[in-house]
């Protein structure tokens, strides 16, 4: 018997760490939904061998699209009341997920966001820190909500917010898009300190400084087309 939450994990070429991450996630006794976003490595086989459901994008569609697919899949199950987005590279801690789930249930919130700047980020590089702070300043300037960490992959939200979400930004810009959504409705939300484990692996998978210009550009274009 699984409980009433779904862990949604977008996967793109994470074969080297995925098995270990999925094993840890399985201790939560939640439904685990992995979206293989067109990986070229053995990620799909690892997901198959685990307790996680495997959804395969026929082509690489981006992390935002993968999250949206996972959310839509989970929404098909009325049992599922809480949705957790979780990164496949092992930088999030299971303890934080437990904590966030108990907070969203106890305080009857719509959204609980993880923040690495409220908590303790291990081994975060200066360049990465600068990039993240810039992303936070940008997102806060454009949306009504004020957050300490806007690009954290660890989020918990309820069914109502999951149904309202319609992620259109394919790349990392989806993080700002989710915050934007949060600012547009009357959602009850809270930031919770989380720990991020940065190791050589997750650093190598991180966004380059250059790519942040792409994200900025896409978001600005999207804002214009909305009006």
């Amino acid at each position: 018997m699984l409980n009433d939450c779904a862990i949604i994990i977008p996967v793109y070429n994470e074969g080297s760490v995925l098995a270990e991450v999925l094993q840890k996630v399985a201790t939560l006794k939640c439904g685990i939904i992995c979206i293989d976003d067109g990986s070229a490595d053995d990620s799909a086989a690892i997901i198959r061998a685990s307790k996680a459901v495997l959804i395969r994008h026929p082509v690489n569609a981006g992390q935002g699209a993968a999250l949206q697919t996972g959310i839509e899949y989970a929404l098909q199950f009325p049992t599922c009341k809480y949705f957790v987005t979780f990164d496949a590279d092992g930088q999030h801690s299971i303890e934080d997920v437990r904590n966030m789930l108990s907070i969203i249930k106890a305080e009857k919130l719509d959204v609980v966001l993880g923040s690495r700047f409220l908590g303790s980020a291990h081994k975060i590089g200066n360049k990465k820190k600068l990039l993240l702070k810039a992303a936070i300043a940008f997102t806060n300037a454009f949306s009504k909500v004020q957050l300490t960490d806007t690009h954290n992959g660890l989020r918990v939200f309820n069914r109502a917010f999951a149904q309202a979400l319609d992620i259109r930004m394919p790349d990392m810009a989806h993080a700002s898009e989710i915050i934007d959504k949060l600012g547009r409705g009357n959602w009850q939300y809270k930031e919770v300190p989380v720990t991020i484990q940065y190791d050589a692996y997750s650093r190598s998978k991180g966004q380059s400084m250059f790519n942040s210009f792409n994200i900025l550009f896409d978001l600005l274009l999207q804002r214009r087309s909305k009006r």
Partner: protein
Amino acid sequence: MIIKPFLILLAALIFLWFLKGKSSLQVSAWKKIGSALLFIFALFAIVVPGLTNRLAHIVGVGRGADLLLYVLTLAFIGSLVGQYSHNKNEHARNITLARRVAIIEANADRENQQKMQQWKN
């Protein structure tokens, strides 16, 4: 001038190519009218080169060739931007399609059904 018949033939071929293209049904009537006007203008410009010169003088440009260059530059940039936005829309459509296919496949998958069975109760 020996070049004129060749230019006229080429312009006519491009015009017919556009009209007979596979996508001609999807191309709006306005675009067809626009291309017809463009073709007629091209014919005049080829047969009576002095025409573009006079047109240029009217709008305050020195030579007809300069006017053509300006118009061509703008048309090129406009077509680039149009292409960019068209590509973005296509990309979004592809992603919607890929996501739909992925969910249908995942629902039909036996192993997934077994894994999710205990979640349904």
